[in-house]
Protein backbone atom coordinates (compact mmCIF):
# COMPACT_ATOMS: atom_id res chain seq x y z
CA UNK A 1 0.00 0.00 0.00
CA UNK A 2 1.47 3.36 -1.04
CA UNK A 3 0.34 6.24 1.16
CA UNK A 4 1.37 9.85 1.41
CA UNK A 5 3.54 9.51 4.47
CA UNK A 6 3.87 13.20 5.33
CA UNK A 7 0.10 13.70 5.22
CA UNK A 8 -0.49 10.45 7.07
CA UNK A 9 1.74 11.58 9.95
CA UNK A 10 0.16 15.06 10.09
CA UNK A 11 -3.36 13.56 10.13
CA UNK A 12 -2.68 10.80 12.65
CA UNK A 13 -0.28 12.44 15.10
CA UNK A 14 -3.06 14.09 17.20
CA UNK A 15 -4.61 10.65 17.79
CA UNK A 16 -1.26 9.14 18.81
CA UNK A 17 -0.62 11.99 21.19
CA UNK A 18 -4.11 11.72 22.68
CA UNK A 19 -3.59 7.98 23.29
CA UNK A 20 -0.19 8.65 24.85
CA UNK A 21 -1.76 11.23 27.17
CA UNK A 22 -4.53 8.84 28.23
CA UNK A 23 -1.95 6.11 28.84
CA UNK A 24 0.17 8.38 31.02
CA UNK A 25 -2.90 9.31 33.07
CA UNK A 26 -3.83 5.64 33.53
CA UNK A 27 -0.30 4.70 34.52
CA UNK A 28 -0.10 7.58 36.99
CA UNK A 29 -3.37 6.72 38.70
CA UNK A 30 -4.26 3.05 38.07
CA UNK A 31 -7.11 3.08 40.62
CA UNK A 32 -9.09 5.81 38.90
CA UNK A 33 -12.41 4.65 37.46
CA UNK A 34 -12.91 6.04 33.98
CA UNK A 35 -16.29 7.09 32.59
CA UNK A 36 -17.66 4.92 29.76
CA UNK A 37 -17.06 7.72 27.24
CA UNK A 38 -13.31 7.72 28.02
CA UNK A 39 -13.09 3.93 27.88
CA UNK A 40 -14.74 3.88 24.45
CA UNK A 41 -12.44 6.65 23.23
CA UNK A 42 -9.41 4.77 24.57
CA UNK A 43 -10.42 1.59 22.77
CA UNK A 44 -11.05 3.45 19.52
CA UNK A 45 -7.67 5.18 19.73
CA UNK A 46 -5.96 1.86 20.41
CA UNK A 47 -7.55 0.32 17.33
CA UNK A 48 -6.66 3.36 15.24
CA UNK A 49 -3.02 3.32 16.33
CA UNK A 50 -2.84 -0.44 15.74
CA UNK A 51 -4.09 0.11 12.21
CA UNK A 52 -1.54 2.92 11.74
CA UNK A 53 1.22 0.57 12.91
CA UNK A 54 0.12 -1.98 10.34
CA UNK A 55 0.20 0.70 7.61
CA UNK A 56 3.58 2.10 8.59
CA UNK A 57 5.09 -1.41 8.60
CA UNK A 58 5.27 -1.20 4.79
CA UNK A 59 7.58 1.85 5.02
CA UNK A 60 11.09 0.55 5.49
CA UNK A 61 12.68 3.92 6.16
CA UNK A 62 10.38 4.87 9.03
CA UNK A 63 12.12 2.88 11.75
CA UNK A 64 11.76 5.56 14.44
CA UNK A 65 8.09 6.10 13.71
CA UNK A 66 7.60 2.34 13.67
CA UNK A 67 9.25 1.98 17.08
CA UNK A 68 7.26 4.89 18.49
CA UNK A 69 3.97 3.36 17.35
CA UNK A 70 5.02 -0.09 18.56
CA UNK A 71 5.71 1.45 21.97
CA UNK A 72 2.31 3.08 22.42
CA UNK A 73 0.42 0.11 20.93
CA UNK A 74 2.25 -2.23 23.34
CA UNK A 75 1.38 0.00 26.33
CA UNK A 76 -2.27 0.30 25.30
CA UNK A 77 -2.43 -3.45 24.65
CA UNK A 78 -1.14 -4.08 28.19
CA UNK A 79 -3.78 -1.80 29.73
CA UNK A 80 -6.68 -3.27 27.73
CA UNK A 81 -5.82 -6.95 28.05
CA UNK A 82 -4.45 -7.00 31.62
CA UNK A 83 -7.82 -8.25 32.84
CA UNK A 84 -7.56 -7.67 36.56
CA UNK A 85 -8.05 -4.39 38.37
CA UNK A 86 -4.72 -3.25 39.71
CA UNK A 87 -4.89 -2.71 43.46
CA UNK A 88 -2.33 -0.34 44.89
CA UNK A 89 -3.77 0.26 48.35
CA UNK A 90 -3.03 -2.57 50.73
CA UNK A 91 -5.01 -2.98 53.94
CA UNK A 92 -2.39 -4.74 56.04
CA UNK A 93 -4.72 -5.69 58.88
CA UNK A 94 -7.34 -7.22 56.59
CA UNK A 95 -4.68 -8.90 54.51
CA UNK A 96 -3.05 -10.55 57.55
CA UNK A 97 -6.25 -11.59 59.34
CA UNK A 98 -8.27 -12.66 56.29
CA UNK A 99 -6.28 -13.13 53.09
CA UNK A 100 -3.30 -14.89 54.68
CA UNK A 101 -5.17 -17.59 56.68
CA UNK A 102 -7.67 -18.27 53.87
CA UNK A 103 -4.81 -18.61 51.36
CA UNK A 104 -3.06 -20.96 53.78
CA UNK A 105 -6.14 -23.18 53.94
CA UNK A 106 -6.73 -23.09 50.18
CA UNK A 107 -3.13 -24.24 49.57
CA UNK A 108 -2.96 -26.70 52.46
CA UNK A 109 -1.57 -29.70 50.48
CA UNK A 110 1.98 -28.30 50.07
CA UNK A 111 1.94 -27.35 53.77
CA UNK A 112 1.32 -30.96 54.81
CA UNK A 113 4.10 -32.07 52.47
CA UNK A 114 6.34 -29.47 54.09
CA UNK A 115 5.44 -30.89 57.53
CA UNK A 116 6.04 -34.47 56.35
CA UNK A 117 9.51 -33.65 54.97
CA UNK A 118 10.47 -31.87 58.19
CA UNK A 119 9.24 -34.80 60.32
CA UNK A 120 11.23 -37.20 58.12
CA UNK A 121 14.27 -35.01 58.76
CA UNK A 122 13.58 -35.06 62.53
CA UNK A 123 13.40 -38.87 62.52
CA UNK A 124 16.64 -39.07 60.54
CA UNK A 125 18.37 -36.62 62.92
CA UNK A 126 17.22 -38.49 66.01
CA UNK A 127 18.17 -41.87 64.50
CA UNK A 128 21.60 -40.57 63.52
CA UNK A 129 22.19 -39.36 67.10
CA UNK A 130 21.10 -42.71 68.50
CA UNK A 131 23.11 -44.98 66.22
CA UNK A 132 26.16 -42.89 65.28
CA UNK A 133 28.37 -41.43 67.99
CA UNK A 134 30.05 -39.10 65.47
CA UNK A 135 26.74 -37.65 64.27
CA UNK A 136 26.53 -34.86 66.87
CA UNK A 137 29.72 -33.16 65.67
CA UNK A 138 28.59 -33.35 62.04
CA UNK A 139 24.98 -32.27 62.46
CA UNK A 140 25.01 -29.49 65.05
CA UNK A 141 25.19 -26.11 63.28
CA UNK A 142 27.08 -24.21 66.01
CA UNK A 143 29.51 -24.92 68.83
CA UNK A 144 27.12 -24.27 71.76
CA UNK A 145 25.04 -27.29 70.75
CA UNK A 146 28.07 -29.58 70.78
CA UNK A 147 28.55 -29.42 74.52
CA UNK A 148 26.74 -31.81 76.88
CA UNK A 149 23.08 -30.81 77.44
CA UNK A 150 23.40 -31.43 81.18
CA UNK A 151 26.47 -29.18 81.37
CA UNK A 152 24.72 -26.42 79.40
CA UNK A 153 21.58 -26.58 81.59
CA UNK A 154 23.74 -26.40 84.72
CA UNK A 155 25.55 -23.30 83.40
CA UNK A 156 22.37 -21.58 82.20
CA UNK A 157 20.54 -22.15 85.49
CA UNK A 158 23.51 -20.99 87.55
CA UNK A 159 24.09 -17.83 85.51
CA UNK A 160 24.09 -14.69 87.64
CA UNK A 161 24.40 -12.14 84.87
CA UNK A 162 22.11 -11.41 81.94
CA UNK A 163 24.41 -12.29 79.01
CA UNK A 164 22.09 -10.44 76.62
CA UNK A 165 21.96 -7.27 78.73
CA UNK A 166 21.97 -4.28 76.36
CA UNK A 167 21.96 -6.56 73.31
CA UNK A 168 18.41 -7.91 73.26
CA UNK A 169 17.11 -5.60 70.52
CA UNK A 170 20.01 -6.16 68.08
CA UNK A 171 19.78 -9.91 68.81
CA UNK A 172 16.03 -9.88 68.02
CA UNK A 173 16.71 -7.92 64.80
CA UNK A 174 19.42 -10.39 63.79
CA UNK A 175 17.06 -13.34 64.38
CA UNK A 176 14.22 -11.70 62.43
CA UNK A 177 16.33 -10.84 59.40
CA UNK A 178 18.23 -14.13 59.34
CA UNK A 179 15.13 -16.31 59.70
CA UNK A 180 13.25 -14.25 57.10
CA UNK A 181 16.16 -14.67 54.69
CA UNK A 182 16.14 -18.44 55.24
CA UNK A 183 12.36 -18.55 54.66
CA UNK A 184 12.59 -16.49 51.45
CA UNK A 185 15.40 -18.75 50.29
CA UNK A 186 13.33 -21.87 51.05
CA UNK A 187 10.50 -20.44 48.93
CA UNK A 188 12.81 -19.35 46.10
CA UNK A 189 14.30 -22.84 45.86
CA UNK A 190 10.89 -24.03 44.71
CA UNK A 191 12.09 -23.01 41.23
CA UNK A 192 14.34 -26.11 41.30
CA UNK A 193 11.15 -28.20 40.93
CA UNK A 194 11.06 -28.28 44.74
CA UNK A 195 14.29 -30.21 45.19
CA UNK A 196 16.05 -27.31 46.93
CA UNK A 197 13.05 -26.58 49.16
CA UNK A 198 12.83 -30.21 50.24
CA UNK A 199 16.55 -30.31 51.03
CA UNK A 200 16.31 -27.18 53.24
CA UNK A 201 13.20 -28.48 55.05
CA UNK A 202 14.76 -31.90 55.56
CA UNK A 203 18.00 -30.36 56.87
CA UNK A 204 16.06 -28.16 59.32
CA UNK A 205 14.25 -31.30 60.47
CA UNK A 206 17.55 -33.16 60.92
CA UNK A 207 18.92 -30.43 63.23
CA UNK A 208 15.66 -30.22 65.16
CA UNK A 209 15.51 -34.01 65.58
CA UNK A 210 19.16 -34.24 66.62
CA UNK A 211 18.90 -31.43 69.21
CA UNK A 212 15.61 -32.83 70.54
CA UNK A 213 17.04 -36.34 70.88
CA UNK A 214 20.23 -35.05 72.54
CA UNK A 215 18.38 -33.10 75.25
CA UNK A 216 15.61 -35.64 75.87
CA UNK A 217 18.16 -38.48 76.00
CA UNK A 218 20.09 -36.50 78.62
CA UNK A 219 16.91 -36.05 80.69
CA UNK A 220 16.65 -32.31 79.95
CA UNK A 221 13.20 -32.29 78.31
CA UNK A 222 11.80 -29.43 80.48
CA UNK A 223 14.76 -27.21 79.56
CA UNK A 224 14.45 -28.15 75.86
CA UNK A 225 10.75 -27.34 75.63
CA UNK A 226 11.11 -24.24 77.81
CA UNK A 227 13.90 -23.05 75.53
CA UNK A 228 12.38 -23.90 72.13
CA UNK A 229 8.61 -23.67 72.53
CA UNK A 230 8.13 -19.92 73.20
CA UNK A 231 9.68 -18.88 69.86
CA UNK A 232 9.59 -22.23 68.03
CA UNK A 233 5.79 -22.41 68.29
CA UNK A 234 5.71 -19.58 65.75
CA UNK A 235 9.13 -19.80 64.09
CA UNK A 236 8.89 -23.44 62.98
CA UNK A 237 5.38 -23.05 61.49
CA UNK A 238 6.62 -19.89 59.71
CA UNK A 239 9.45 -21.83 58.07
CA UNK A 240 6.95 -24.57 57.20
CA UNK A 241 4.78 -21.89 55.53
CA UNK A 242 7.89 -20.78 53.61
CA UNK A 243 8.28 -24.42 52.56
CA UNK A 244 4.59 -24.47 51.60
CA UNK A 245 5.22 -21.47 49.32
CA UNK A 246 8.29 -23.17 47.82
CA UNK A 247 6.41 -26.38 47.16
CA UNK A 248 3.51 -24.40 45.68
CA UNK A 249 5.98 -22.83 43.25
CA UNK A 250 7.37 -26.29 42.55
CA UNK A 251 3.92 -27.70 41.82
CA UNK A 252 3.36 -24.93 39.25
CA UNK A 253 6.76 -25.69 37.70
CA UNK A 254 6.02 -29.42 37.48
CA UNK A 255 2.33 -29.13 36.54
CA UNK A 256 1.50 -32.72 37.30
CA UNK A 257 -1.92 -33.67 35.82
CA UNK A 258 -2.44 -30.12 34.59
CA UNK A 259 -3.42 -29.17 31.06
CA UNK A 260 -2.37 -25.56 31.49
CA UNK A 261 0.98 -24.28 30.27
CA UNK A 262 3.72 -23.59 32.81
CA UNK A 263 3.21 -19.83 32.32
CA UNK A 264 -0.50 -20.07 33.05
CA UNK A 265 0.08 -22.20 36.14
CA UNK A 266 2.69 -19.77 37.48
CA UNK A 267 0.48 -16.74 36.77
CA UNK A 268 -2.33 -18.36 38.79
CA UNK A 269 -0.26 -19.09 41.92
CA UNK A 270 1.81 -15.88 42.15
CA UNK A 271 -0.61 -13.86 44.35
CA UNK A 272 -0.94 -16.80 46.79
CA UNK A 273 2.82 -17.27 46.78
CA UNK A 274 3.54 -13.73 47.95
CA UNK A 275 0.71 -13.85 50.50
CA UNK A 276 2.22 -16.98 52.08
CA UNK A 277 5.79 -15.71 52.07
CA UNK A 278 4.97 -12.28 53.52
CA UNK A 279 2.67 -13.94 56.07
CA UNK A 280 5.59 -16.12 57.15
CA UNK A 281 7.81 -13.01 57.40
CA UNK A 282 5.27 -11.35 59.72
CA UNK A 283 5.26 -14.43 61.94
CA UNK A 284 9.05 -14.37 62.12
CA UNK A 285 9.02 -10.80 63.49
CA UNK A 286 7.06 -12.07 66.49
CA UNK A 287 9.26 -15.15 66.84
CA UNK A 288 12.42 -13.00 66.82
CA UNK A 289 11.12 -10.77 69.62
CA UNK A 290 10.08 -13.77 71.76
CA UNK A 291 13.39 -15.57 71.18
CA UNK A 292 15.46 -12.56 72.24
CA UNK A 293 13.34 -11.40 75.17
CA UNK A 294 11.96 -14.67 76.59
CA UNK A 295 13.45 -17.90 75.22
CA UNK A 296 17.02 -17.19 76.40
CA UNK A 297 15.96 -16.85 80.07
CA UNK A 298 15.62 -20.08 81.97
CA UNK A 299 14.65 -21.25 85.46
CA UNK A 300 14.94 -19.93 88.07
CA UNK A 301 14.53 -16.50 86.31
CA UNK A 302 11.47 -17.73 84.42
CA UNK A 303 10.07 -21.12 85.46
CA UNK A 304 9.93 -23.74 82.72
CA UNK A 305 6.22 -24.25 83.33
CA UNK A 306 5.51 -20.61 82.45
CA UNK A 307 7.61 -20.79 79.28
CA UNK A 308 6.10 -24.08 78.14
CA UNK A 309 2.61 -22.81 78.95
CA UNK A 310 3.29 -19.68 76.91
CA UNK A 311 4.51 -21.77 73.96
CA UNK A 312 1.47 -24.05 74.08
CA UNK A 313 -0.86 -21.03 74.24
CA UNK A 314 0.89 -19.55 71.17
CA UNK A 315 0.60 -22.84 69.29
CA UNK A 316 -3.12 -23.10 70.13
CA UNK A 317 -3.73 -19.49 69.08
CA UNK A 318 -1.81 -20.02 65.83
CA UNK A 319 -3.75 -23.21 65.04
CA UNK A 320 -7.02 -21.39 65.70
CA UNK A 321 -5.87 -18.48 63.54
CA UNK A 322 -5.05 -20.72 60.58
CA UNK A 323 -8.19 -22.83 61.03
CA UNK A 324 -10.78 -20.09 61.60
CA UNK A 325 -9.54 -16.59 60.67
CA UNK A 326 -11.03 -15.04 57.55
CA UNK A 327 -13.73 -17.70 57.15
CA UNK A 328 -16.58 -15.20 57.23
CA UNK A 329 -14.87 -12.65 54.96
Amino acid at each position, binding site marked *: *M*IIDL*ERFVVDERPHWERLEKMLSEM*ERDPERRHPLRDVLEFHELY*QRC*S*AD*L*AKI*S*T*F*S*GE*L*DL*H*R*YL*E*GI*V*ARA*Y*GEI*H*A*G*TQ*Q*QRKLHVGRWFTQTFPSTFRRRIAPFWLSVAVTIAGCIFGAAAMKFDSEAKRTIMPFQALNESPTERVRKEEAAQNDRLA*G*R*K*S*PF*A*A*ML*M*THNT*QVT*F*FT*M*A*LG*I*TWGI*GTIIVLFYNGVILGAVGFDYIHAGQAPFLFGWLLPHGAVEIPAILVGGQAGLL*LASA*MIGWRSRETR*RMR*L*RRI*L*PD*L*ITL*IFGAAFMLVWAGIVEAFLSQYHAPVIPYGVKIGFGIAELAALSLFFARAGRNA
Partner: protein
Amino acid sequence: MNVVKTGTLPLRTPEGIVFSLPLAGPASRFLALSIDLACITAASQGLERVFGVLKILSVGQALFAIVYFVLSIGYGIVTEWFWRGQTLGKRVVGLRVMDEHALRLEFSQIVVRNLLRFVDALPLFYLVGGAACFFTRHSQRLGDLAANTIVVRDLKPSQPDLNQLLGGRYNSMLEQRHLAARLRQRVPPAAASIALDSILRRDEFEARARLELFGELAGYFRGLVEFPPEATEQLSDEQYVRNVAEILFVKRA
Protein backbone atom coordinates in the same frame (compact mmCIF):
# COMPACT_ATOMS: atom_id res chain seq x y z
CA MET B 1 18.98 -27.97 24.74
CA ASN B 2 18.75 -26.14 21.44
CA VAL B 3 17.53 -22.61 22.09
CA VAL B 4 17.22 -20.14 19.24
CA LYS B 5 17.83 -16.61 20.52
CA THR B 6 16.53 -13.78 18.37
CA GLY B 7 17.06 -10.73 20.59
CA THR B 8 13.42 -9.74 20.21
CA LEU B 9 10.11 -11.09 21.45
CA PRO B 10 7.45 -10.81 18.73
CA LEU B 11 3.87 -10.49 19.96
CA ARG B 12 0.63 -10.64 18.06
CA THR B 13 -2.45 -8.87 19.44
CA PRO B 14 -5.95 -10.34 19.02
CA GLU B 15 -6.46 -7.59 16.42
CA GLY B 16 -3.71 -9.19 14.33
CA ILE B 17 -1.15 -6.44 14.92
CA VAL B 18 2.40 -7.65 15.33
CA PHE B 19 4.94 -5.76 17.41
CA SER B 20 8.24 -6.82 18.87
CA LEU B 21 9.97 -6.11 22.16
CA PRO B 22 13.78 -5.79 22.07
CA LEU B 23 15.21 -8.09 24.77
CA ALA B 24 18.05 -7.01 27.05
CA GLY B 25 21.16 -9.19 27.11
CA PRO B 26 23.04 -10.46 30.19
CA ALA B 27 25.76 -7.78 29.88
CA SER B 28 23.44 -4.77 30.04
CA ARG B 29 21.46 -6.40 32.82
CA PHE B 30 24.62 -7.01 34.83
CA LEU B 31 25.58 -3.35 34.36
CA ALA B 32 22.15 -2.23 35.64
CA LEU B 33 22.49 -4.62 38.59
CA SER B 34 25.93 -3.21 39.44
CA ILE B 35 24.47 0.32 39.51
CA ASP B 36 21.63 -0.89 41.74
CA LEU B 37 24.07 -2.59 44.13
CA ALA B 38 26.09 0.64 44.25
CA CYS B 39 22.88 2.54 45.08
CA ILE B 40 22.01 0.12 47.89
CA THR B 41 25.55 0.38 49.27
CA ALA B 42 25.45 4.18 49.12
CA ALA B 43 22.02 4.26 50.78
CA SER B 44 23.19 1.92 53.55
CA GLN B 45 26.25 4.15 54.13
CA GLY B 46 23.88 7.10 54.42
CA LEU B 47 21.70 5.18 56.84
CA GLU B 48 24.72 4.26 58.91
CA ARG B 49 25.46 7.98 59.33
CA VAL B 50 21.83 8.69 60.20
CA PHE B 51 21.77 5.85 62.71
CA GLY B 52 25.33 6.66 63.84
CA VAL B 53 24.19 8.49 66.93
CA LEU B 54 21.37 6.04 67.63
CA LYS B 55 23.68 3.04 67.23
CA ILE B 56 25.12 3.76 70.66
CA LEU B 57 21.76 2.52 71.91
CA SER B 58 20.84 -1.10 71.29
CA VAL B 59 17.52 -0.02 69.76
CA GLY B 60 19.46 2.00 67.17
CA GLN B 61 21.53 -1.05 66.19
CA ALA B 62 18.37 -3.14 65.87
CA LEU B 63 16.65 -0.48 63.76
CA PHE B 64 19.67 -0.19 61.46
CA ALA B 65 19.79 -3.98 60.93
CA ILE B 66 16.08 -4.10 60.08
CA VAL B 67 16.12 -1.01 57.84
CA TYR B 68 19.18 -2.33 55.97
CA PHE B 69 17.47 -5.70 55.45
CA VAL B 70 14.26 -4.06 54.20
CA LEU B 71 16.27 -1.75 51.94
CA SER B 72 18.28 -4.56 50.34
CA ILE B 73 15.18 -6.72 49.72
CA GLY B 74 12.67 -3.93 49.08
CA TYR B 75 14.74 -1.67 46.80
CA GLY B 76 14.01 -3.64 43.64
CA ILE B 77 10.37 -4.27 44.58
CA VAL B 78 9.52 -0.66 45.40
CA THR B 79 11.37 0.97 42.50
CA GLU B 80 10.08 -1.50 39.91
CA TRP B 81 6.55 -1.04 41.21
CA PHE B 82 6.51 2.76 41.27
CA TRP B 83 8.60 3.28 38.13
CA ARG B 84 6.71 0.63 36.17
CA GLY B 85 9.44 -1.96 35.79
CA GLN B 86 12.53 0.18 36.30
CA THR B 87 15.10 0.46 39.06
CA LEU B 88 17.63 3.27 39.10
CA GLY B 89 20.17 1.02 37.36
CA LYS B 90 17.67 -0.01 34.70
CA ARG B 91 16.76 3.65 34.10
CA VAL B 92 20.40 4.57 33.57
CA VAL B 93 21.10 1.65 31.24
CA GLY B 94 17.72 1.97 29.51
CA LEU B 95 16.07 -1.30 30.51
CA ARG B 96 12.57 -2.12 31.70
CA VAL B 97 10.89 -5.20 33.22
CA MET B 98 7.76 -6.21 31.34
CA ASP B 99 5.19 -8.95 31.46
CA GLU B 100 6.07 -11.75 29.04
CA HIS B 101 2.87 -11.07 27.09
CA ALA B 102 3.25 -7.27 27.28
CA LEU B 103 0.37 -7.14 29.77
CA ARG B 104 0.40 -4.78 32.73
CA LEU B 105 3.08 -5.76 35.24
CA GLU B 106 1.49 -6.97 38.47
CA PHE B 107 2.80 -6.50 41.99
CA SER B 108 3.05 -10.26 42.61
CA GLN B 109 5.28 -10.62 39.53
CA ILE B 110 7.64 -7.90 40.79
CA VAL B 111 7.85 -9.45 44.27
CA VAL B 112 8.51 -12.97 43.02
CA ARG B 113 11.17 -11.97 40.48
CA ASN B 114 12.96 -9.99 43.20
CA LEU B 115 12.72 -12.69 45.89
CA LEU B 116 14.09 -15.29 43.50
CA ARG B 117 17.32 -13.28 43.42
CA PHE B 118 18.28 -15.48 46.40
CA VAL B 119 18.66 -18.36 43.95
CA ASP B 120 19.80 -16.36 40.93
CA ALA B 121 22.66 -14.87 42.95
CA LEU B 122 24.08 -18.35 43.74
CA PRO B 123 26.84 -19.36 44.15
CA LEU B 124 28.26 -15.84 43.72
CA PHE B 125 28.00 -12.86 41.34
CA TYR B 126 24.64 -14.03 39.94
CA LEU B 127 26.22 -17.04 38.24
CA VAL B 128 22.98 -19.06 38.20
CA GLY B 129 20.92 -16.09 36.95
CA GLY B 130 23.54 -15.22 34.33
CA ALA B 131 23.69 -18.79 33.06
CA ALA B 132 19.88 -18.91 32.89
CA CYS B 133 19.87 -15.63 30.92
CA PHE B 134 22.41 -17.07 28.53
CA PHE B 135 20.58 -20.32 27.89
CA THR B 136 16.92 -19.26 27.84
CA ARG B 137 15.30 -18.06 24.62
CA HIS B 138 14.12 -14.75 26.04
CA SER B 139 17.22 -14.06 28.19
CA GLN B 140 15.35 -14.72 31.43
CA ARG B 141 16.92 -15.43 34.81
CA LEU B 142 15.12 -17.86 37.11
CA GLY B 143 13.18 -15.01 38.77
CA ASP B 144 11.88 -13.94 35.37
CA LEU B 145 10.87 -17.50 34.50
CA ALA B 146 8.90 -17.84 37.75
CA ALA B 147 7.25 -14.41 37.44
CA ASN B 148 6.60 -14.57 33.67
CA THR B 149 8.58 -11.42 33.07
CA ILE B 150 11.17 -10.29 30.56
CA VAL B 151 13.63 -7.40 30.57
CA VAL B 152 13.51 -5.23 27.46
CA ARG B 153 15.60 -2.39 26.13
CA ASP B 154 13.71 0.84 26.67
CA LEU B 155 14.58 2.35 23.30
CA LYS B 156 14.61 6.09 22.86
CA PRO B 157 14.47 6.62 19.08
CA SER B 158 17.31 8.82 17.87
CA GLN B 159 17.75 10.43 14.50
CA PRO B 160 20.79 9.23 12.55
CA ASP B 161 23.01 11.78 10.85
CA LEU B 162 21.37 11.61 7.46
CA ASN B 163 23.63 14.31 6.00
CA GLN B 164 26.30 11.64 5.71
CA LEU B 165 24.23 9.63 3.30
CA LEU B 166 24.90 11.40 0.05
CA GLY B 167 27.90 13.50 0.84
CA GLY B 168 26.54 16.25 -1.44
CA ARG B 169 26.27 14.03 -4.51
CA TYR B 170 23.41 14.01 -6.98
CA ASN B 171 21.02 11.05 -6.61
CA SER B 172 20.03 10.02 -10.12
CA MET B 173 17.68 7.30 -8.83
CA LEU B 174 15.39 9.86 -7.19
CA GLU B 175 14.37 11.05 -10.66
CA GLN B 176 12.48 7.77 -11.09
CA ARG B 177 9.75 8.65 -8.59
CA HIS B 178 7.52 5.62 -9.17
CA LEU B 179 10.47 3.23 -8.83
CA ALA B 180 11.65 5.04 -5.68
CA ALA B 181 8.17 4.64 -4.20
CA ARG B 182 8.19 0.95 -5.08
CA LEU B 183 11.61 0.57 -3.45
CA ARG B 184 10.32 2.17 -0.22
CA GLN B 185 7.48 -0.31 -0.26
CA ARG B 186 9.55 -3.43 -0.94
CA VAL B 187 12.58 -3.00 1.29
CA PRO B 188 12.01 -4.68 4.67
CA PRO B 189 12.88 -2.53 7.75
CA ALA B 190 15.76 -4.80 8.75
CA ALA B 191 17.43 -4.45 5.33
CA ALA B 192 16.93 -0.67 5.40
CA SER B 193 18.53 -0.55 8.83
CA ILE B 194 21.54 -2.61 7.63
CA ALA B 195 22.02 -0.30 4.64
CA LEU B 196 21.95 2.79 6.85
CA ASP B 197 24.32 1.30 9.44
CA SER B 198 26.72 0.17 6.71
CA ILE B 199 26.96 3.70 5.33
CA LEU B 200 27.27 5.40 8.68
CA ARG B 201 30.03 2.97 9.73
CA ARG B 202 31.71 2.53 6.35
CA ASP B 203 35.07 3.93 7.51
CA GLU B 204 35.36 1.23 10.16
CA PHE B 205 35.58 -1.59 7.57
CA GLU B 206 38.71 -2.92 5.92
CA ALA B 207 38.86 -2.10 2.21
CA ARG B 208 38.17 -5.65 1.05
CA ALA B 209 35.32 -6.23 3.51
CA ARG B 210 33.83 -2.86 2.55
CA LEU B 211 33.81 -3.82 -1.14
CA GLU B 212 32.25 -7.20 -0.45
CA LEU B 213 29.58 -5.78 1.90
CA PHE B 214 28.42 -3.03 -0.44
CA GLY B 215 28.57 -5.42 -3.41
CA GLU B 216 26.25 -7.81 -1.61
CA LEU B 217 23.88 -5.06 -0.48
CA ALA B 218 23.72 -3.43 -3.92
CA GLY B 219 22.99 -6.83 -5.49
CA TYR B 220 20.16 -7.35 -3.01
CA PHE B 221 18.57 -3.94 -3.68
CA ARG B 222 18.99 -4.31 -7.46
CA GLY B 223 17.00 -7.54 -7.21
CA LEU B 224 14.09 -5.79 -5.48
CA VAL B 225 13.49 -2.96 -7.97
CA GLU B 226 15.11 -2.59 -11.37
CA PHE B 227 16.04 1.00 -12.20
CA PRO B 228 16.72 2.00 -15.84
CA PRO B 229 20.41 1.80 -16.83
CA GLU B 230 20.72 5.58 -17.39
CA ALA B 231 19.88 6.15 -13.67
CA THR B 232 22.42 3.67 -12.32
CA GLU B 233 25.25 3.39 -14.80
CA GLN B 234 28.66 4.42 -13.52
CA LEU B 235 27.43 4.09 -9.94
CA SER B 236 29.73 2.10 -7.67
CA ASP B 237 28.07 -0.47 -5.38
CA GLU B 238 28.64 1.80 -2.40
CA GLN B 239 27.10 4.81 -4.17
CA TYR B 240 24.17 2.63 -5.21
CA VAL B 241 23.51 1.69 -1.58
CA ARG B 242 23.88 5.36 -0.53
CA ASN B 243 21.27 6.34 -3.10
CA VAL B 244 18.94 3.60 -1.88
CA ALA B 245 19.38 4.71 1.76
CA GLU B 246 18.63 8.30 0.81
CA ILE B 247 15.42 7.21 -0.92
CA LEU B 248 14.42 5.24 2.17
CA PHE B 249 15.38 7.64 4.93
CA VAL B 250 15.56 11.26 3.76
CA LYS B 251 12.22 13.06 3.82
CA ARG B 252 11.58 15.47 0.94
CA ALA B 253 9.50 18.64 1.31
